[in-house]
């Protein structure tokens, strides 16, 4: 194999013909009928808005073409590079946490025997995902304040006696990763759990008969068989991570502004649009993020062979 990854991106994943029904010559419209409503929505709320954002990013207020000047202007903004740095550190922590812990938890829950226990645990892990918005602000205002926190001993053990110590700049990437994990991990456990369920039980039985232990079964059979879902999770988590917005916004509100509201790149895009009334600059920053996400996704897809069916 000498193909570089970029070449491979270009030729990703041929359809494995055997696994798809060839309607080719005789009823080409069935597939189209199935996807038509989706394509309509995709055009309206996906493609057109994205195209409009691209148009905004390359023009000025009057609609004249300005090349890359919006991009260079925003990249020179004094808040841009720090924000990019913040997001990079956060992403690293977040992706490692997600890939290791979510996969581990899913495998552990999946191998439990009692159905009821499984349900209870999955529900417990998911509950935080149901809480959003205003209440989360309040929740974190209390949870991160050592004087009233339900987990005060832990915070104090980590050397923070006051709320302002907790939200010191050095702690923030970890805090945001923990919050993101707290709210989002349960949902991913569900998705991966569903994927694990699609592995036929006779395969696992066979492995047992061959004397493979739990760990080996997990590594040799279960993980490869849900590889697509894991890759997919990482892509989405990466994309969501580059768009870090909700967590810093929450903490910014809960800390009354000590954590600034321009901590992440996406927040900066938001500031451009809605406090500076500069939708062109905002679109340029959004496109920066999109390009980063696309490049990394391309790598993921190439490595994870996402579009193949076995």
């Amino acid at each position, binding site marked *: 194999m000498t193909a570089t990854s970029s070449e491979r991106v270009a030729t990703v994943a041929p359809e494995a013909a055997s696994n798809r029904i060839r309607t080719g010559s005789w009823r080409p419209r069935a597939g189209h009928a199935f996807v038509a409503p989706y394509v309509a929505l995709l055009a309206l709320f996906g493609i057109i808005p994205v195209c409009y954002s691209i148009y905004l990013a390359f023009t000025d207020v009057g609609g004249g073409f300005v090349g890359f000047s919006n991009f260079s202007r925003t990249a020179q903004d004094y808040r841009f590079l720090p924000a990019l740095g913040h997001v990079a550190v956060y992403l690293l922590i977040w992706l490692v946490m997600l890939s290791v812990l979510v996969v581990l938890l899913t495998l552990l829950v999946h191998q439990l025997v009692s159905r009821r226990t499984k349900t209870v645990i999955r529900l*417990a892990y998911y509950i935080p995902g149901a809480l959003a918005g205003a209440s989360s602000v309040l929740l974190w205002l209390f949870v991160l304040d050592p004087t009233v926190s339900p987990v005060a001993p832990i915070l104090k053990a980590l050397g923070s006696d006051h709320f302002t110590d907790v939200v010191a700049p050095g702690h923030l990437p970890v805090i945001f990763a923990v919050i993101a994990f707290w709210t989002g991990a349960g949902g991913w456990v569900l998705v991966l759990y569903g994927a694990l369920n699609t592995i036929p039980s006779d395969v696992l039985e066979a492995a047992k008969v061959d004397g493979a232990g739990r760990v080996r079964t997990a590594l040799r059979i279960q993980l490869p068989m849900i590889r697509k879902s894991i890759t997919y999770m990482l892509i989405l988590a990466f994309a969501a991570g580059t768009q870090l917005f909700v967590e810093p916004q929450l903490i910014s509100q809960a800390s009354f502004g000590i954590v600034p509201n321009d901590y992440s790149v996406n927040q900066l895009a938001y500031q451009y649009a809605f406090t500076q009334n500069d939708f062109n600059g905002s679109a340029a920053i959004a496109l920066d993020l999109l390009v980063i996400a696309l490049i990394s996704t391309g790598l993921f897809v190439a490595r994870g062979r996402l579009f193949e069916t076995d």
Partner: protein
Amino acid sequence: MSSPASYTAQRWAGRSLVAVVLIVFGLFFLVPVIWLLLAGTKTNHQLVDGNPFSFGSLSALRHNWDALMSFQSGSFKTWMKNSVLYAGLALVITLVVSIPAGYALAKLDFKGRRPLLIVTLVVMLMPTSALVLPIFLEVNYVHLVNTPLSVILPFSFFPFGVYLAYIYFADAVPSELLEAAKIDGCSEVRTFTAIALPLGMPVVALVGFFSFVQNWNNFFLPYVMLPRSDAYPMQVGLTQMLTSTPNFNPVVGASAEVSPPELVLATLVSAAPVLVIFLLAQRYVVSGLTAGATKG
């Protein structure tokens, strides 16, 4: 090979390690939630000064509840109704649109299949804050701003759901079954409804669930599209309640309308539908999957 006794000991040690890990994470996810549950039963004073894990009192709970229901002469119920309407209708449209699309992408061969997949992925990666303005302008262009449709339609576009369905059908529904149905003379639609859909119930539940949660918790789109306060969904309403607490808006003064415990209660009530739906979807997600029945 180890002796049976040490083998049991090993297994026992393994099991307790698993139990410890699961419980530790369970605590991590639940401790803040338990705090929230208890917070609704306290007065503001107890919330700040009391033990985080103490139960307040039923009378405080009742007081908080009454205060919540009387906020802005009963807006809370209106917001709740709106949320149910928006997320509910969007859920129906999402399922009708995404599941067949995911199925077709996975199992049918048609022109433009791969570009469609790629475009879907690209659109999913676009920062949402960048799409608010264009979508607002579109909706405004057809004079739908301020109508329920202005949020329901964008809510119904759920590429993540299409992807989930695509992955599921590709992995878990054997093509041989579909082929067999075709040979028996089923039309494409019939094959989908009779064979694929029953097998795909888990993913229908999953997509439905995720779509519902995401739309239920969506703040920014309704915030932009619905300038009328009687059209707010719960999330926008909650944010307004947040700014009626002295913590976040000191100027509300001594007669502050909303205290933190009331806000907590509001959240719990607003999260309840999501949890109910979760419990309902659970059964389908877990129900015995016949996926891979013909795979060896």
